[in-house]
């Protein structure tokens, strides 16, 4: 039997002539210290990409790329097709793992100076691989054709609409027509299933080929500088003097980590299940709070904080600057020190980026900039804010709810976070200041002068006047010479001020 297998193998190799190449790849010398657990993320990214290709092909057996049917076919996958939910979950979690591992891989090679001579092009292709991975994540979110996908496309179109002069053209090309509809899903399907995966396969192949041809980055040592004139020779010496064959010396760590990643994707898929779809993509359902997928939430958060006049420049110039910086990095830092302990600027840049992205993503988790649309009708007024209050003040509490103040202002720990919490607002503002703030707005608050009659303003501000801790008196306007006694005796009895 082994003889037969040998003969079949030989038959093929006589024709394919591949055994030499495979042996060369397997036995090429890698520096011993590079056979490290830090060097497993590239192969792990490739592993997840392969999972994505296969689960994607599986999903395409059922999925209908039509704006009218996509959502239904996802429900069918989730609930009717046996294990359809699991394949969707694998693909969805695989996507998250892929973005995460690609980012980790990128940070690792940046920290280890792997982009320096002669691996500049490997890095640049890697930058494109990152962009394509993000492109897959975004177009994949569109494939899950639900409310979030629909309004996510709306956000994409609105960003394109900010391009000067040709904005309208860009929007129409993005959507494939005047509105988000059938043609939009079809073209995103085209990108998600044909264009980007095809490019990814081509770029990954070149990326891998270059790793083989140029050799894996050596473990950085402080003081061992990269010089264009001597590097190649130094690397060859290192790989042969203190090196070992890739198989089995280094490959076992890649294999064990790849298996760990596959098991993790499967565990997440089985335990957490598939992502969505959320509500059907019907734009007339306006009771929706759209939100992008995890890896785009930092951008969603950033767009809430940029001042309006900076937004268009940041959206249009920002990506060019960031991508341009990443592509140019190996050209202005292509030589010199590779060790992280001697590259403070690189480390600080990576740390600041990570902290910024992490903070923005964290903020997107509870969107403090968004009004809570149903806070006014569902959040109760805390009992202690109502007991012992005058009818006028209680009426004010009702106005407070009725006029949706609660959507942006929390009291008793519930309500919106867009504006300040009002539990101690009376300490900060006098009666007259509160009236002014309510009527004229300002500081990012709408003016309510036209929406409230004077009786409502009176009641509302009387209620707000009662909102201060028991041990802290309400603010008062000393210019008006109101005796502090009156304030102390009756909480909220500031009627004297009003007249």
């Amino acid at each position, binding site marked *: 039997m082994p003889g037969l297998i040998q003969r079949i193998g030989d038959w093929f190799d006589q024709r394919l002539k591949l055994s030499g190449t495979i042996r060369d790849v397997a036995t090429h010398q890698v520096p011993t210290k590079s056979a490290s657990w830090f060097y497993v993320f590239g192969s792990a990214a490739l592993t997840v990409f392969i999972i994505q290709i296969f689960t994607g092909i599986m999903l395409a057996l059922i999925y209908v790329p039509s*704006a009218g049917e996509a959502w239904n076919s996802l429900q069918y996958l989730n609930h009717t097709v046996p294990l359809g939910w699991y394949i969707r979950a694998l693909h969805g979690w695989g996507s998250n793992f892929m973005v995460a591992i690609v980012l980790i891989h990128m940070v690792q090679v940046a920290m280890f100076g792997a982009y320096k001579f002669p691996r500049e092009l490997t890095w640049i292709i890697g930058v494109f691989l990152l962009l394509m991975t993000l492109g897959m994540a975004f177009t994949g979110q569109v494939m899950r054709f639900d409310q979030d996908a629909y309004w996510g496309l709306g956000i994409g179109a609105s960003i394109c609409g900010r391009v000067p002069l040709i904005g309208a053209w860009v929007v129409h090309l993005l959507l494939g027509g005047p509105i988000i509809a059938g043609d939009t899903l079809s073209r995103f399907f085209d990108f998600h299933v044909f264009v980007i995966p095809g490019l990814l396969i081509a770029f990954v192949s070149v990326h891998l080929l270059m790793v083989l041809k140029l050799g894996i980055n050596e473990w950085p040592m402080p003081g061992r500088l990269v010089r264009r004139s001597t590097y190649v020779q130094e690397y060859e010496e290192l790989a042969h003097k203190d090196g070992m064959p890739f198989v089995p010396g280094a490959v076992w760590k890649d294999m064990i980590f790849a298996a760990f990643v596959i098991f993790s994707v499967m565990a997440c898929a089985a335990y957490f299940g598939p992502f969505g779809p959320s509500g059907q993509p019907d*734009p007339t359902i306006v009771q929706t709070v759209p939100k992008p997928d995890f890896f785009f939430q930092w951008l969603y958060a950033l767009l809430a904080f940029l001042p309006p006049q900076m937004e268009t420049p940041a959206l249009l110039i920002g990506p060019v600057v960031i991508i341009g910086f990443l592509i140019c990095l190996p050209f202005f830092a292509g030589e010199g020190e590779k060790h992280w302990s001697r590259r403070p600027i690189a480390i600080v840049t990576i740390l600041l980026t990570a902290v910024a992205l992490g903070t923005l993503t964290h903020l997107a988790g509870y969107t403090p900039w968004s009004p809570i649309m149903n806070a006014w009708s569902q959040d109760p007024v805390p009992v202690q804010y109502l007991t012992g209050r005058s009818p006028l003040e209680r009426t004010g509490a009702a106005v407070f709810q009725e006029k949706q103040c609660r*959507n942006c202002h929390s009291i008793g720990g519930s309500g919106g976070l867009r504006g300040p919490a009002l539990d101690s607002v009376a300490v900060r503002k006098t009666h007259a200041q509160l009236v002014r703030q309510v009527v004229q707005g300002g500081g*990012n608050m709408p003016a*309510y002068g036209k*929406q409230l009659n004077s009786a409502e303003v009176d009641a509302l501000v009387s209620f707000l006047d009662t909102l201060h801790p028991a041990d802290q008196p309400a603010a008062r306007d000393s210019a008006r010479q109101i005796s502090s006694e009156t304030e102390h005796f009756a909480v909220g009895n500031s009627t004297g001020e009003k007249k």
Partner: protein
Amino acid sequence: MSEREVSRRQFFVKLGIALNGLAAVALATPIVGYLLAPLIRSQGGRYQKWIDLGELDEFPEGQTRLAKYKNPISNPWDGETDNIPCWVRRVQGEEFQIFAINCAHLGCPVRWFPQSGLFMCPCHGGVYYQDGSRASGPPPRGLFEYTYKVQDGHLMIQGGELPTLSTSASLQKRSDGCQG
């Protein structure tokens, strides 16, 4: 002899390159045209049509109501996506303001709150007054407004395009006046 041979072959190689270059241009031109179809179709404002929103009686004076219409350019496979909502405010008589559902910031659907007379956006907290002017938050302008007319007791609007800061020029013109 050999020199002549080489130059003859080189000539044919050049001819081959030229022929394939010609073929590539001939092949690519219609493909580029096909890819630019959404732009060609949009020329001359052809995405914009007059749309019937219904009888005037459906919109009580002094109120703002959600209206829905089917986008004038649509396909049977669009499903629900070609049903477009908009906010209709009947100021008085035949004076209307018809707002696009899309926030001027990034296109999310704004919601009307009649109690406080505000439109609020769920995405980044854009807020507009009842006349569509910007009240607070990140929007760079007021809500997009449709051009409208009253015809035979019906409210007609001119629409058909997702409004953004650069599409739907006719939507922009009117609302410039009421920016906050």
